[in-house]
Structures are given as structure tokens and as C-alpha cells.
């Protein structure tokens, strides 16, 4: 069973964003856990959860055992972070990226985010000549003025923005939690930047422990371990053309012993290597094309803060199966009916948003039409107005939308029957 969802499991997926991004669907690991090949056809219903380790296949019990629910500890618990917005945002960003590349044939259109159009490039000359028409003694004439030429200097400006849709959910302790930022050169020339992280900040409950910074190597705005490049100050300080953007990922470790709901701030700072200081500060010959570099309104540096939140919400799934064979026994033989139940409940202090339970039908079985139910109320098999479907959303898969769950929500019980082929 996969607890997927429009929730990002930031605990289990360091590459959370990748999953959201790649699938454009609810997060969760798409592939089934790898297992040794069964020696013979076996009825299994792999509980595909983000946390796979605790999942075991359902097997038939010895005949002398009384029929009873076989419990599959489908998943213990893991923090869930609402990320509908994040998914949408990433999808948008994905398409923005695509567009960005497509349109990069036209440099002036290479925009991303809230950035204004590229300012006039450093080194450009702006010339102005006026004319005066006049009439003297009936004779008209036109005369031109001198030409005033201004040189456009390089303005040093940048913007840093935290990209996560909301507080990044973490456990306590937790390792290498990714915080995503976007650095944009809002000046009018090429500039490079020194990056720094500060975690000892006031107003929060804990200090994340800085691990490393990664630079987005493939331009997808998503942290890709093994693809993106570790940052070393002074070694590979990122350089950006005017109006260009770069995603920057900061990884931190979360200390042990924190309380649910505790917040920890992570601040990223980018500073122009060309120069910074009070707006208007000029650095002769430091700009592009031999121009003067002038510090813009940003002061040549910017910082922004992202927040980790120790998540107080987890979803527990409890799966069981009852087998009834044609002879009145409990043997998993062809023709036997297997009735699965999945109990879902939330624990903790927060709300798990948009919870979706998906459960691929076991191999070598056939779904018994019309047996899907939620809390004992029948659901139609089609993907329609009710909360669930079989095969409609995903082929050969039970999908039930549970919506938002809180610890106060009653246990949600999904049931359906399959017949062994």
C-alpha cells in the first residue's frame, strides 16, 4: 500500500522534490519494493508505502489457525507535510523552466519569477540629440543640438527567495534536510556571488546544523543528489548573467530531542563578489565592459530565511486480510475470497492534508466488482464523485481520497474483496 498523497513525506524522501516534480503527482515512491522472486505464484499485496522496510507480504496462515485478520504493519508513521501548493508550484516552476529554455533564444524573454525585464546592459550608450525649428523673417530652419551620451554602468543587485511552499517538515533527529532557495541577478551585468549560511538566529526553537550547500546543475530547480554540485566558497561561487536565476539547496541536520511544532530557521546569504555596501557605492572599472559597478538598492547582498518545523503529524496504516475459500475454510486457493481492510489514522498535533491511500491489487487476483467501501459505506468502482475507485485513477489499483486527517479524525477503514485466480 502506498500512502501517497498530496502530501510530501519530507522525512522519508530527501529527494522529496524530485518525486513531486518528476511525477507531477502526489508524492510517494512509485516503484514497488524490490523483493526476491517468489518460487511459486504467491498472493501478495505489497504495501507500498514510502517507508518500505516495515512492510511484509500477506501470507496465508496454517490451516489449523482460526481465520483471523492478518495484520500488515503497512507503515508505522511518518511526518506528512501538506504540499499541494508545493506540488503545484513545482509543476509551475517545471513549466517555467521549460519555457525558460525554449525562450532563451530570445534573451530578453528569459524571465523567471517576479523579476522585471532585464535592465539596459552595462556598457550600453544612451545618446540624445534634440532639434529646434524656428522661423526668422519668414524663413524656416531646423537646428540640431549637441548629442549627450550617457554610459550605462553595472548595477549590482540580487534577490534571494525561499522556494519551499511552507515550513519544511522534519523529524527529530533528522539528516540532510533540504531547504530550497532561488538566487536571481536583478542587476544588469554578469556577477558572481559568495554564499553563506547562518543558523544561530533568534525567534525560533532550535538551530539546524548546517551540512552543505548545493548548486542546481541541471536547471530544474529541484535538488538532485549526484547531479547538483556541492558549493565551495571561493572555488565555485556561482556566476549569473543579468536576470538569470539559480536554485540553491542548503542541507541541514536536525537535532534530537525537539518537540513537535518546534521551528528552526535557516538563513542563506548571497553577496556580490563585485562589491556591496550602501546603495550607490561605486567600484571603478569593476563592472562589465569596463564600466563602473554601482551598488543597487539591495546593497549588493541579500538574505532570506527558510524554516524547518518538527512535524507533529503522522499517518498510521493498518492492513488486514480475511480469506474465505470455497470449501468454507481459510486456504488461499483459487476461488478463495480475500477481504482486505486498511485502517488509516492520524496522530500528532497537525493536520495531514489531502491524504490519498493507494493500494495495488494483489497479483493473481481479480477484484470483486462493487466491494469497495469506506467506513462500511459502499463506494462505486468508477472514478467519480465519491471518495474512491478501483482502477479508475490508476490501473489495477485501489485509490481512496481521505481528505484532511487530524488526530481527532475517526479511524478511516477502507475495505475491498479480491478473488484468487
Amino acid at each position, binding site marked *: 500500500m502506498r500512502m501517497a498523497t498530496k502530501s510530501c513525506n519530507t522525512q522519508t524522501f530527501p529527494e522529496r522534490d524530485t518525486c513531486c516534480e518528476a511525477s507531477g503527482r502526489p508524492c510517494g515512491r512509485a516503484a514497488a519494493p524490490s523483493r526476491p522472486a517468489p518460487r511459486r505464484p504467491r498472493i501478495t499485496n505489497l504495501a507500498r508505502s514510502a517507508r518500505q522496510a516495515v512492510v511484509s507480504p500477506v501470507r496465508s496462515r496454517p490451516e489449523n489457525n482460526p481465520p483471523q485478520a492478518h495484520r500488515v504493519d503497512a507503515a508505522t508513521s511518518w511526518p506528512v507535510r501538506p504540499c499541494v501548493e508545493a506540488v503545484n508550484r513545482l509543476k509551475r516552476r517545471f513549466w517555467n523552466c521549460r519555457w525558460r529554455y525554449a525562450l532563451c533564444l530570445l534573451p530578453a524573454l528569459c524571465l523567471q519569477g517576479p523579476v522585471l*525585464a532585464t*535592465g*539596459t546592459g552595462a556598457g*550600453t550608450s*544612451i*545618446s*540624445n*540629440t*534634440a*532639434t*529646434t*525649428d*524656428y*522661423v*526668422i*523673417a519668414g*524663413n*524656416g*530652419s531646423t*537646428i*540640431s*543640438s*549637441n*548629442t*549627450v551620451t*550617457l*554610459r*550605462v*554602468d*553595472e*548595477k549590482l543587485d540580487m534577490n534571494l527567495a525561499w522556494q519551499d511552499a511552507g515550513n519544511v517538515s522534519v523529524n527529530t533527529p533528522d539528516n540532510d534536510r533540504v531547504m530550497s532557495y532561488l538566487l536571481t541577478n536583478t542587476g*544588469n551585468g554578469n556577477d558572481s556571488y559568495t554564499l553563506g549560511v547562518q543558523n544561530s538566529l533568534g525567534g525560533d526553537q532550535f538551530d539546524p546544523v548546517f551540512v552543505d550547500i548545493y548548486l542546481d546543475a541541471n536547471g530544474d530547480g529541484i535538488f538532485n543528489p549526484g547531479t547538483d554540485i556541492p558549493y565551495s566558497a571561493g572555488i565555485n561561487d556561482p556566476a549569473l548573467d543579468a536576470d538569470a536565476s539559480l536554485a540553491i539547496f542548503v542541507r541541514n541536520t536536525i537535532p534530537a530531542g525537539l518537540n513537535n511544532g518546534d521551528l528552526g530557521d535557516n538563513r542563506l546569504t548571497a553577496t556580490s563578489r563585485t562589491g556591496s555596501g550602501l546603495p550607490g557605492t561605486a567600484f571603478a572599472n569593476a563592472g562589465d565592459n569596463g*564600466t*563602473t559597478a*554601482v551598488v*543597487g538598492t539591495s546593497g549588493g547582498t541579500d538574505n532570506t530565511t527558510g524554516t524547518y518545523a518538527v512535524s507533529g503529524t503522522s499517518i498510521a496504516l493498518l492492513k488486514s486480510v480475511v480469506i474465505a475459500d470455497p470449501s468454507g475454510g481459510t486456504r488461499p486457493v483459487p476461488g478463495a475470497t480475500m477481504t482486505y481492510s486498511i485502517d488509516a489514522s492520524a496522530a500528532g498535533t497537525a493536520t495531514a492534508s489531502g491524504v490519498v491511500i493507494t493500494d495495488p491489487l494483489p497479483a493473481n487476483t481479480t477484484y470483486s466488482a462493487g466491494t469497495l467501501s469506506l467506513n462500511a459505506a459502499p463506494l462505486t468502482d468508477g472514478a467519480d464523485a465519491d471518495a474512491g475507485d478501483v482502477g479508475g485513477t490508476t490501473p489495477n489499483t485501489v485509490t481512496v481520497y481521505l481528505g484532511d486527517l487530524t488526530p481527532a479524525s475517526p479511524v478511516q477503514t477502507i475495505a475491498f474483496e479480491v478473488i484468487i485466480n
Partner: protein
Amino acid sequence: MKTLISISTGVLLAVFSSQIMARIEVATSAEIEVTETNAQGEQTVVRTAATSVVPGTEVIYTITSKNTGAAQADHIVVTNPVPAQTVYVEDSASGHDAAITFSVDGGKTYDSAGKLTVTDANEETRAATAEDYTHVRWTFGSSLEPGQEVPVTYRARVK
């Protein structure tokens, strides 16, 4: 730096004596405003001649027409294309006793602000905005007497 250009032709010389030879000079200057802080910490905005700018800078262009001749000059019209890479700053044009009009079609036609329209790529016509202006024109309401000089001015923001 002023460039003097003498408008004088053989015909004019033949007809008029040198005393009434027409001579109009026109000079353009560019300035920017800079905030200066004095020893008392007081801030004042001063204008200074501009040689370089950055995107966002407002440039104050001043065009001064001077009659250096001995005859009255009439029908004075000063025209200035809004420089490339800049946009006209709304309501910034001024000039003593001059009617100010703008062009949005590269100087073919002029009209006062508020009467101009532009047609966009979708063939829809809308009111023109300051960003659409391609030229600024000052049409003087009075003559330029010998020795008189009249400045007109406007602001353009560097894109």
C-alpha cells in the same frame, strides 16, 4: 559642451546685413539628482551633470534654445526623441509658455497627453501611456527675442 551651429546661407547673407543675421543655438544637457549628506547629517538633493547611469536612473534632459542673432525668431518648436533604452517619465515635461505634445508613432504625429492611443498586436486600441511616447515636442507660444534663451525639460528613466 555647446556646439554652435551657424545657420547662414548665401541667400540670407545676400538679403540681410550681418547685423540681423539669424542665429539660434540649441544645447542639450543631461543631469541626475544625487542625495548629498552634509556635515550636520542633513540630506539635500542636488543636480549634477550626468556621464553615467544605471537602470532605473531618472535623467533630467534640458534643451535650451537661444537666439544669438539680432532678429526675432518665431514659431519655435523643440523636438526630442525619447532616447533608446529610456522611457519618458509621466508629467515630467515642462517649458515656459510652451504647448507640450507627444508622439507615439516615431514622430509622425503629435498630440497632447491623454489624446494619444496605440494599437496593440491584437488590433485593440488603448490609451497611450508614458512608456509609449517616442518623442516629446514643445511648441512655444511666444517668439524668441534676440539674446533670449528658453529651456525646456523632461525626465527619462533608464530601462
